[in-house]
């Protein structure tokens, strides 16, 4: 059983003459096979810090993160990252960008292009194989980033606001695309977003984080992505009474956190 385990993880920075600042305090979280975990929260709540810890770009001050029993000590191909932006290599075309990870891992050209083409097809980029990445729209660039992350067959996909820079229409399409990719590949996903609607629609599990110190304040199990696979109508689900009432509940939590920040 593949699983990511975050045990009692804290991150703090020493401050001269004051108690240390906690970016994250006592985080406990388990992500299991086929989980789509979405992290949501006011700015400064430590969502990105948590993702960076899982990716191995940062080290926890206390506690431990392990994937399938192995402790995370640095970045690795079992945890692929989809960044918000600026992560493609503009000197490579789409095909070579998608195949980049495989090249790093020493795959031969024929083999890595074959695998890359598979994911280019999955993300619907066939016509753009030879295009330069800077000629693509923001939505297309994110698809290239997702395809690239999938090529190394990771256990978990880490997505740091991957759709934050997209316009509303493209964003909705990309949400559905990511859900389909998730269903078809069966990866664990840890997904950060600022959009409550996006979080509710996409996740199987929602963690709401609160700042000062960064912590997980609420956890919700979500039914909406399963409903989407049954009905195929995303807008209908997002307009349902159940969806709206949960959205308002979560917005109240986040607004309360933001208000608390202003009173300090």
């Amino acid at each position, binding site marked *: 059983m593949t699983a990511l385990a975050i045990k009692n993880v804290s991150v703090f920075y020493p401050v001269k003459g004051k108690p240390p600042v906690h970016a994250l305090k006592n985080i406990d979280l388990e992500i299991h096979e086929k989980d789509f975990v979405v992290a949501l929260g006011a700015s400064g709540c430590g969502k990105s810090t948590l993702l960076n810890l899982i*990716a191995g*770009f940062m080290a926890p001050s206390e506690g431990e993160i392990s994937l399938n029993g192995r402790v995370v000590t*640095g*970045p*690795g*191909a079992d*945890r*692929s*990252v989809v*960044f*918000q*932006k*600026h*992560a*493609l*290599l*503009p*000197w490579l075309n789409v095909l070579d960008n998608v195949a*980049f*990870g*495989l*090249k*790093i*891992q020493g795959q031969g050209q024929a083999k890595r292009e074959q695998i890359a083409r598979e994911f280019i097809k999955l993300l619907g980029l066939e016509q753009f194989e030879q295009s*330069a990445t*800077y000629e693509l729209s923001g939505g297309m660039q994110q698809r290239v980033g997702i395809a*690239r*992350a999938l090529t*190394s067959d990771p256990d978990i996909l880490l997505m740091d606001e991957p759709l934050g820079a997209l316009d509303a229409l493209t964003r909705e399409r990309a949400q559905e695309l990511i859900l389909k990719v998730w269903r078809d590949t069966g990866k664990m996903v840890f997904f950060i977003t600022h959009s409550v609607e996006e979080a509710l629609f996409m996740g199987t599990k929602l963690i709401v984080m609160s700042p000062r110190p960064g912590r997980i304040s609420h956890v919700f199990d979500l039914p909406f992505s399963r409903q989407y696979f049954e009905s195929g109508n995303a807008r209908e689900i997002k307009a349902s009474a159940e969806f709206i009432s949960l959205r308002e509940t979560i917005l109240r939590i986040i607004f309360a956190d933001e208000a608390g920040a202003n009173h300090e």
Partner: protein
Amino acid sequence: MSDQDAKGGSGLLAGLMKAKPAKPGEIYGVPGQGESFKISAVVIVLLISFWGFVTYAGYIQPLFLPSPTAVLNALFDVIKEGFTGVGFWEHIWISTLRVFGAFVLACAIGIPLGIAMGMSPVARGIFDPPIEFYRPIPPLAYLPLMIIWFGIDELSKVLLIFSSVLAPMVLGARAGVKSASIEQIHAAYSFGATRWQVIRTVILPSAMPEIFTAMRVGIGFGWTTLVAAEMVAATSGLGYMVLSASRFLQTPVVIMGIVVIAAIAYAFDHLVRFVERRVVPWKGRG
């Protein structure tokens, strides 16, 4: 209309007060937008006409500034007869060899060194003081040392030019290391890249635009230093030609030599720009 008059009027100053309206296919306010080739051509023609006018009309003695035809004649003479017993093309060849030898050497050493200094605090700690120490010193000042240490042959000449090209190459490559975004670097590490792979596949390619700029600056320094390098114990080369011609007050040859040096440097600069467009078409758009 009255608004424009109130703000800056017309004429030369108006361009500074308010950007021009965008033409079709342009975007308002992009700095330096528009064609400059025709203006440059007109300026060159005007400069040469002015030069011809003041010399042919006799306002300036030929000793101070010879006429364009005198300079052209000097060129044909030297091409035909050579200068101090050495053929014209040989002067060009030997100088080009010195400058480009030094340039290639400076690239081969300076680019890896700059990348290393950008990547590692140890390399930065070791090489920053010596490079920053010698960088502002004019090559003429340490020319005597170079000659005492490395003799009066080609070695000291090439090393002198090399030392003036090296610093901009190192600085350019070092600054270029910062061009890669942390997301690009993290992406490579996420796939299990080694540090060396990150340097080769992410850091170096994204540093290329800075490195090309450094090459253009560096080769310019190389040609500047050439004359100094050919001051002592040289019997051929464009710098030598200019220096000895000036000693014998052969001003046409001096000016001809200067123009030839400038022409070669200009041609090479265009070559680098051409290669740059081929190698880094993504510059500024990544």
